[in-house]
């Protein structure tokens, strides 16, 4: 009833819905970035929504599954093999005892979600099994040779749900941020009119947007609390959208906030892809 990691790929972590409620002690919420795909993977294998699963980053991963069970891979698109045979994503597939599961590199999107019936049952830390890549709370990033316990399957797999793969939307809805007044005249319009390029340094902490710098007031603000989706504007005018592992406080003005419903889109944007910001409406 465990998973032996053979190749963790560039970055694979254990994630669940994160650990809200600890920000005042400096602990990021963490948790899955693409909440929609992760919830779907868990539902497909009959796991409950609070169970943990694996989140891969672009390059995929491979592992040997000890203890036959259902699994499902959602999110980023790409190949999947079980014991060397091609298997479909976005549906529950049976893994025989001792089979090697190979999640291939993402052809579209960034993050694949690999769920097993029973969930990944590492010991929770502060109420969550999520790896927080910023502050280091929770289980370590997956390494070759690591053994992860799997839980006892409780539910039964969901049948042939036909969910679409990763969302292809290329715009993010934004609310005006608390420090929108730090923008120079006309800069809000520029923020919304720009076709932003996703920066290569994007990670679980933040999605970096590159383009002609948005002009803002000079100076600094005293560090203040940050939320997931906060669009910070450093002096160079290149916005950073904070994701699940964001620092709990920050000193750059938050000029906009990406709607929570579009954070899963942020999770799947690849470096170099284009994205625009558009006003959110109630």
């Amino acid at each position, binding site marked *: 009833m465990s998973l032996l990691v053979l190749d963790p790929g560039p970055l694979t972590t254990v994630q669940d819905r994160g650990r809200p409620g600890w920000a005042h002690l400096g602990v990021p919420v963490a948790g899955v970035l693409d909440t929609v795909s992760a919830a779907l993977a868990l539902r497909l294998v009959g796991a409950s929504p609070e169970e943990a699963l694996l989140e891969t980053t672009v390059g995929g991963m491979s592992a040997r599954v000890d203890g036959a069970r259902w699994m499902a891979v959602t999110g980023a698109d790409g190949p999947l093999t079980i014991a060397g045979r091609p298997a479909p994503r976005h549906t529950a597939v049976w893994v025989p005892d001792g089979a090697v599961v190979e999640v291939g590199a993402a052809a579209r999107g960034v993050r694949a979600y690999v769920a097993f019936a029973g969930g990944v049952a590492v010991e929770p830390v*502060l109420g969550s099994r999520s790896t927080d890549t910023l502050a280091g709370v929770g289980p370590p990033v997956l390494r070759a040779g690591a053994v992860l316990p799997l839980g006892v399957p409780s539910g039964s797999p969901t049948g042939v749900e036909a969910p679409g793969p990763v969302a292809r939307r290329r715009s993010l809805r934004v609310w005006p941020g608390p420090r929108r007044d730090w923008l120079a005249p006309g800069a809000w319009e520029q923020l919304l009119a720009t076709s932003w390029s996703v920066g290569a340094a994007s990670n679980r902490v933040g999605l970096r947007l590159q383009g002609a710098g948005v002009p803002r007031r000079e100076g600094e603000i005293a560090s*203040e609390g940050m939320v997931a989706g*906060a669009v910070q504007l450093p002096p160079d005018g290149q916005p950073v959208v904070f994701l699940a592992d964001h620092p709990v406080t920050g000193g750059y003005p938050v000029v906009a906030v990406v709607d929570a419903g579009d954070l899963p889109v942020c999770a799947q944007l690849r470096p170099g892809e284009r994205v625009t910001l558009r006003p959110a409406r109630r």
Partner: protein
Amino acid sequence: MRCLSMGPKALLVETDGPWRSLALAELARAEDWAVDVVPAAATVLLDGVRDPEEVRRRVVSEPVAATPPDGPTVRIPVTYDGPDLEEVATRWQVDSEQVVARHTSVTWVALFTGFAPGFGYLATKETWPSVGRRSTPRPRVPAGAVGLADRWSGIYPAETPGGWQLIGRTEVVLWDALRADPALLTPGTRVRFVAR
């Protein structure tokens, strides 16, 4: 105090300083206004606000007093042999014994956390001279290092880079994620340093 929206589910309340932030955060936490209540130097973030309109009304109509909390006091033994002790003494034009005497003579309060899990920003209501950060931060500051910066004092919970002036060290564990109360210095905790 001004209430600013940070998206549909969060409010950023501006305060007149960290003591007011702490008092408001304690009220918000006691009354469960939000999932996450994050005090900072001049703001309190309420993330996952349960009733934004009610919170706005309360913040405007019922100002909180910026008095130091009377919570429990944590005593922290410190060996005052930090590499910047002499530098701080020189800047204050005193000798290093007097730096130690000052640091151990006032009551500190953890006002908010920043920088790393369990790193409490400690301030005192008593007279306290400012001291600038190091011009070049150290790439590695050991866990337990006791430092000063501006009018703050703080203890590094884990080995990290850092630019504070280091005056001593303690063996007290500041942060342990596996404890029920992971941080020793939660916002509102009073601290007395004891020389050893």
